[in-house]
């Protein structure tokens, strides 16, 4: 059940959302050390504290209010300063925005450490231990392996397989925090809308935050298929969120706040996958007996995925995708590792025959 009132106190409105006004600084370069948070796990030193190779750029003092609180620039001069800033961010951001291809599915990701950790959306990474092809901004393709995913918020982790950059550090994003985001703030989205296009590259979009919640932020940076897993930056060039999903309205673009990657880093780095987005639980629509030695289907629920795929009561499931099924619990676990909409090849024992079914996974609460 979703709350109507945003849970965070600072998400009240666009103009009074600031809760942490920093003192005006004397120099024109602001690098807030409190904003520097890195992945707490992993073997990397990719915490982004020193950022000559990162995406963080100096912020002109006149852009400080716009950067912190968002809102409408006071003059066209400020607007022109903003565009200078977003050009600089775009240039750096495009270097660490990558295309991620796993099987036929294409999404984006962003490199966050010089050792090649890539954060993305959980539904782009799909499952732990999958082989992924990562296309860098210069078109070079490298091999990567999926680690873990927190599907509760759609956060996923991938790592570029070691030894592919001649010992050189990977270009990576500077990490910000999603702790101080407020509606009305400006943000810069990068990604590969419609998939990777070598003649075009990553495409910048600029918009504002319309809603900030603990698990999701909504912006009017227009996204579309292929952008998932791509980065959202603030005006200092710090990574603040990752693209996740969209609604029909062009202003309904949802992103995973970056702090979730910090919270979930250790488990994801160990290759754990857990949870599901609300209304997004992968579902087969069968019942079985957990105490027997085989995965025998007792009943197929009408109108659900298994029925549509031709599964019958009495079928004994022996293989689900690439996973051998030994009992009903292992079937339950295998289904939990899929995503709604996936088409999975399923082998069942029906009487004396072995039958292959293709089932498109459904979803439930």
């Amino acid at each position, binding site marked *: 059940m979703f709350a109507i009132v945003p849970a965070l106190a600072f998400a009240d409105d666009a103009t009074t959302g600031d809760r942490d006004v920093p003192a005006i600084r004397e120099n024109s370069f602001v690098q807030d050390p409190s904003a520097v948070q890195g992945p707490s796990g992993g073997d990397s030193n990719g915490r982004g504290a020193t950022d000559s190779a990162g995406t963080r750029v100096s912020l002109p003092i006149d852009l400080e209010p716009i950067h912190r609180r968002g809102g409408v620039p006071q003059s066209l001069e400020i607007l022109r300063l903003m565009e200078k800033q977003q050009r600089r961010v775009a240039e750096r951001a495009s270097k660490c925005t990558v295309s991620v291809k796993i099987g*036929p599915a*294409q999404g984006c990701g962003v490199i966050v450490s010089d050792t090649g950790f890539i954060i993305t959306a959980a539904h782009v990474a799909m499952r732990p231990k999958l082989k992924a092809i990562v296309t860098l901004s210069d078109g070079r393709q490298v091999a990567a392996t999926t680690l873990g995913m927190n599907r509760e918020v759609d956060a996923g982790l991938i790592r570029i397989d070691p030894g592919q950059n001649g010992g050189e550090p990977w270009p990576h994003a500077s990490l910000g925090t999603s702790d101080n985001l407020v509606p009305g703030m400006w943000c810069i989205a990068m990604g590969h809308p419609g998939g990777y296009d070598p003649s075009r590259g990553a495409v910048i979009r600029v918009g504002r935050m319309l809603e900030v919640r603990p698990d999701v932020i909504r912006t009017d940076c227009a996204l579309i298929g292929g952008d*998932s897993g791509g980065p959202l930056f603030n005006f200092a060039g710090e990574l603040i969120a990752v693209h996740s999903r969209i609604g*029909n309205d062009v202003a309904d673009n949802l992103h995973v706040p970056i702090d979730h990657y910090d919270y979930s880093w250790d488990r994801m780095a160990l290759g754990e996958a857990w949870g599901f987005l609300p*209304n997004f639980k992968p579902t087969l629509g069968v019942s079985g007996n957990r105490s027997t030695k085989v995965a025998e289907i007792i009943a197929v629920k009408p109108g659900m995925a298994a029925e549509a795929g031709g599964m019958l009561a009495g079928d004994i499931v022996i293989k689900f995708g*690439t996973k051998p099924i030994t009992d009903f619990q292992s079937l339950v676990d295998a289904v939990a590792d899929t995503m709604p*909409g996936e*088409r999975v090849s399923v082998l069942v024992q029906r009487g004396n025959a072995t039958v292959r079914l293709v089932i498109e996974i459904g979803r439930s609460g």
Partner: protein
Amino acid sequence: MNQQPIARFSKRCPSAFVLTALVSMVLSAAGFAPAVFAQSTPHWMGHGRYQSSIASRDSGAMMRLVRPLSEMVEQSVVQVYSGGDVVALGTVVSEDGYILTKRSELSGGEPVSVRLPNGQKVDARVAARRKSNDLALLKLHGGDEANWNIKPATFSTVDPPTGSFLVSPGRDGFTIGIGVLGVPARYVAHQGRLGVNFYDAPSGPAMVRRVHPESGADNAGLQDGDRILKINGRQLLGSQSAITTLGKMYPGDVVRLTIKRGENTLELDALMCDQALLMESENDAKVNGPRNVRLSGFDSVIQHDTVLAPNQCGGPLLDSQGNIIGINIARAGRVVSYALPSSLVTAEMIGMLEEARRPSE
């Protein structure tokens, strides 16, 4: 190709959320092959929509901020009517009433008129066309010429870099929206499609294997098993020549098909569309929102993310200094608006004005 899962989900939840990964259309039947999937709209989303206007990029306050830029070109922006509806904007290019607009929106022979910056509505005729970049040159011919109060646009040679703010003015100093330059000028190909599959035939007529539902072919009444003898009066030499001939057509073009159905020979007119649209899922169509029919096939276009309605193309596109850097030419998708750069517009305009002013024999 399998679009079924997407269609099923979208029918079940009309305002669904779509995970934004892209799935290639070639799905292997075996193994894991995910499809784009959907989630019903969370409750708070509806709540969020109401407050979005204050905080959004295109908020009223933002539009007021850039209004001075739109007002700089106020006398050069008109609205174009065809058959009583506003179909496009237009950019004034000469004192004596020549206006550039989007050609493909001037549908078949309907009378054209123009709403001038001062609100006056004046008749116009099409004086020249350039199909390759979808431009039409209109000539005003009505009302009191002295009161037109129009000013030709000054096209700028400035070439703003990626990440620059762009402003799209409407008529009367109004601003339609702001956006950001996402991709510098590039060639955008087109792939004309009728919406049919053919049986392989090395020569002779092309036989229709399957008509895609709701395609131009479907709407024209083409049926499975029809034999296409001619396209625009030209005899076909097999299925490959049909595909090649149709592929060269621009989306929005209407083709005349001469077909043989049983013993009857029929003539059908069918609207071409771009292959990308034919391939996309129902959900993709929904999230893309309203688009122009002619949304691809340009020699050179700037890509930006300003949200335009399909009938808001044809007007000038400004940089943050108010320079006219191009003309909006298509709303092509949720994240894509295209503009012809000023250099291309200027070259086309010179040729078209010359053609229009050439004394007729």
